[in-house]
């Protein structure tokens, strides 16, 4: 592969325009097929039995009564999913999370499943399964779980990352540390120090489409899986490994996906559906209920974070330190570590230290949620930064500008930054009219910054040119928010043709090479790189065919604006050949014309955003209203600006929900109290104002068009921006997210009582 990914500084004719997405009409007419919209002949209904206990030994499961019920075709337990993980600890955790093996580790943990001829029979069968539990003490709070007296969730966990291996097991899976310099020295140099502790509650990605799949295992060992997922190739690998299937014989088709936000990067029900189908000998459709989605899939970490930051009176930060404790659910994770890496990434710091603790609790296995772990760390750090700016009498934007990381700064997580956008987003915010707009009584304005790494990864794309000159683009990253439009624009740009001539589809696992998960804001970044590469390969073929048609050397043919052009004096009378003309002759010049690409899209540029918001607080009730909201973020290059804006707005809205009302509420019994959209309160239309956006374009040097990922960063600043706004509105520093009305009112009352 001789693909050159470097930024070329070229001008664009398609990229940067805003055409209608290719999958749009299907989606506004109800024809688009999502996870639950697919059916197979002879299909059964799958349902999962879940533990009502937060922590319990499974002594025995008796499925005999359920098996005898008329219409039940298969009942499975962990015994039907034998351990084929071969010492791979991460895969074993996935297996155990799909179906509890020895212990139920959280309210909602799957313990058995049935396949029956209809939903009613399946429901009845679940009631006939008898599980003998030995209920154990449980722990759901992250701080409680760290105490020596806490119930032990896994006695094989001995904290990693300590100087000496501990002699006793604990709920702390791992300690990690990042930073450089000497924070003790740095704090000694500070004129002012802010030190505070913060908590954030667990949230769910809240995608509107529950997990859904249709699995069909044939007697010959081949299988099909239709599923809503962010990464069908990864699902294929995981399912094949857990079921003992050959990966190439398991075809996974990615349905339209009704939201993921990281929550559809993990298998849950899919191996169960395959196991049911294998046992029943018939296709099985398994769709989670909303209750199951909340209890058993998704959530992000609950956290407890201590932050200490010191600065000189001139506004220079001299030292910054944070201790971050993140819940992982009942399995090992690396969530605190990501928090520790991202916490101070926006700043240029001589002395910085962060320590992360991964904490096991009796809650669902923590899953990625849009820039996972970064929003909570940013909430703590950006709250403290705001307070410090106030304490030394500096404008919060100026204070951040003074300390902002720039090209050449050593990031708090290690490497030195290339060209980055934190400074420009802050300058844009400083000059934004929003910052100067007047505020009314009980209103406050807050701002905050956010960082996310962005990923690339393995990517494979096919570009096929039909004989009529139209182009089909087959990609392997999942379209979670309009990427088929963006990738069609990129193909059109590179080939020099019109957008309307390109049609992009998401190919299944048997039609295209492996693609990594569509995560880390990589969809458009990675697949556009592969699309450019595939288009360049196709252009090479197009030039060869034109050369044949003209009977001249291929080196004399160049590609310009969608046409082959013969170069040189001697070819002066040849004119040019359009893509369409070359395609029409392809049958006679060597067959179909295509361009393929398989590459690792590395070098995703890091991403920064700064948000501004105005909040009104009712001091009598603690009720809040978001009055105005502005997102400023670097996109590198916005391929389809409307969908970039959409990512900014959507991330901000999720952050607003998290900041104000969304949380997992557990009862003393360890059961989730609010597994539904009624009491897990995501923002509704009337909760939000218009969300203004400003796209900055600081080209990524590692992408031909300068593209950076844009999907995740927008959820990082809102928690802190809103906390700062509330603090400015009512004069009380809020340290516990979500800032629900009871929490705000309690804080106000405490302040009034002095």
């Amino acid at each position: 592969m001789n693909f050159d990914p470097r930024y070329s500084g070229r001008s664009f004719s398609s990229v940067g325009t805003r055409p209608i997405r290719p999958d749009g009409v299907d989606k506004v007419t109800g024809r688009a097929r999502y996870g639950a919209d697919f059916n197979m002949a002879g299909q059964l209904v799958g349902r999962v039995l879940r533990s009502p206990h937060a922590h319990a030994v499974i002594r025995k499961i008796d499925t005999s009564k359920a098996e005898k019920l008329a219409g039940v075709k298969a009942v499975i337990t962990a015994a039907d999913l034998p351990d084929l993980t071969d010492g791979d600890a991460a895969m074993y955790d996935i297996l155990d999370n799909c179906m509890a093996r020895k212990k139920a580790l959280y309210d909602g943990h799957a313990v058995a499943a049935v396949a029956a001829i209809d939903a009613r029979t399946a429901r009845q069968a679940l009631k006939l399964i008898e599980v003998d539990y030995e209920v154990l003490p449980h722990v759901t709070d992250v701080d409680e779980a760290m105490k020596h007296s806490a119930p032990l969730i896994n006695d094989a966990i001995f904290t990693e990352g300590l100087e000496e291996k501990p002699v006793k097991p604990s709920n702390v899976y791992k300690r990690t540390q990042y930073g450089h310099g000497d924070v003790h020295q740095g704090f000694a140099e500070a004129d002012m120090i802010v030190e505070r502790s913060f908590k954030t509650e667990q949230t769910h990605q809240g995608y509107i489409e529950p997990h859904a799949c249709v699995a069909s295992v044939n007697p010959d060992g081949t299988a099909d899986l239709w599923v809503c997922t962010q990464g069908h190739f990864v699902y294929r690998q995981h399912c094949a490994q857990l079921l003992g299937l050959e990966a190439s014989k398991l075809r996974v088709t990615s349905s339209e996906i009704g939201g993921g936000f990281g929550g559809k990067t993990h298998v849950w029900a899919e191996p169960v559906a395959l196991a049911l189908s294998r046992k029943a000998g018939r296709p099985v459709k398994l769709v989670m209920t909303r209750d199951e989605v909340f209890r058993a899939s998704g959530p992000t970490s609950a956290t407890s974070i201590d932050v200490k930051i010191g600065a000189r009176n001139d506004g220079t930060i001299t030292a910054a330190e944070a201790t971050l404790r993140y819940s992982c659910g009942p399995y090992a994770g690396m969530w605190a570590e990501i928090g520790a890496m991202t916490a101070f990434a926006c700043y240029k710091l001589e002395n910085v230290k962060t320590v992360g603790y991964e904490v096991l609790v009796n809650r669902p296995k923590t899953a990625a949620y849009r820039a996972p772990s970064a929003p909570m760390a940013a909430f703590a750090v950006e709250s403290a930064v705001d307070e410090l700016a106030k304490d030394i009498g500096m404008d919060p934007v100026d204070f951040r500008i003074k300390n902002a990381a720039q090209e050449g700064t050593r990031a708090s997580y290690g490497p030195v930054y290339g060209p980055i956008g934190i400074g420009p987003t802050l300058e844009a915010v400083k000059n934004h009219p929003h910052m100067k707009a007047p505020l009314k009584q009980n209103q406050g304005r807050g701002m905050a910054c956010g960082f996310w790494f962005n990923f690339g990864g393995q990517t494979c794309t096919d570009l096929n040119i039909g004989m009529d000159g139209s182009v089909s683009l087959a990609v392997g990253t999942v379209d979670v928010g309009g990427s088929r439009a963006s990738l069609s624009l990129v193909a059109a740009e590179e080939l020099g043709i019109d957008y309307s001539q390109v049609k992009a589809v998401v190919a299944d696992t048997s039609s295209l090479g492996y693609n990594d998960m569509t995560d880390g804001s990589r969809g458009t970044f990675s697949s556009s790189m592969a699309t450019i590469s595939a288009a360049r390969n196709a252009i090479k073929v197009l030039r060869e065919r034109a050369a044949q048609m003209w009977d001249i050397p291929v080196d004399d043919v160049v590609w310009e604006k969608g046409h082959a052009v013969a170069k040189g004096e001697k070819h002066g009378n040849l004119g040019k050949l359009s893509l369409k003309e070359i395609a029409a002759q392809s049958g006679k010049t060597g067959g179909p014309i295509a361009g393929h690409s398989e590459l690792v899209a590395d070098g995703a540029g890091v991403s920064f955003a700064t948000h501004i918001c105005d909040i009104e607080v009712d001091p009598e009730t603690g009720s809040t209203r978001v009055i105005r909201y502005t997102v400023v973020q670097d996109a590198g290059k916005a391929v389809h600006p409307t969908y970039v804006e959409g990512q900014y707005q959507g991330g901000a809205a999720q952050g607003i929900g998290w900041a104000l009302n969304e949380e997992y509420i557990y009862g003393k019994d360890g059961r989730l109290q609010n597994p539904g959209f009624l009491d897990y309160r995501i923002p509704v239309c009337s909760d939000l104002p218009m969300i203004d956006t400003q796209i900055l374009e600081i080209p990524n040097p590692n992408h031909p068009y300068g593209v950076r990922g844009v999907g995740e960063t927008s959820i990082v600043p809102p928690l802190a921006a809103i906390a700062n706004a509330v603090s400015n509105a009512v004069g009380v520093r809020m340290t516990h997210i979500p800032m629900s009305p009871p929490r705000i009112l309690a804080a106000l009352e405490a302040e009034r009582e002095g």
Partner: protein
Amino acid sequence: MAGVAVSTTINGDHVEYLCQPDETLLDVLRDRLGLTGAKEGCGTGDCGACSVIVDDRLVCSCLVLGAEAEGRQIETIEGMAHGDQLHPLQQKFLEHAALQCGICTPGFLIAAKDLLAKNPDPTEEEIRFGLAGNLCRCTGYDKIVRAVQDAANVMKEGSR
């Protein structure tokens, strides 16, 4: 359990089906009639993804029994376009990119159609409260509200 025979009208077409007494209209539409445009996001009336119109009333089809459809007029997303002519709301949702994943889109379109039928010239606040029964997790609602505003303007001009 005795099945209930139902005779009803869906998107102007006469339809007959047999359903179980506890089966919801949403289940009937999706599993018996192949009309999968209405989605089940929650099954409890909290997300609006299954919105349909029954006798000019906007409802969640997950909170209606299939048996209750007897003799009613039901409108679903599949009947919103006229032939190859998209409804102005459908067209404006496309133009404004008022959808990202699109799972909530059929419900929003049906709810917005009902809203504009009852209030052809809504303010932003009326649109926001009128669509509060439909959850969207991708867009932050901004582009949805703008699409509805734009469609309202187009429809007003069309009716002049």
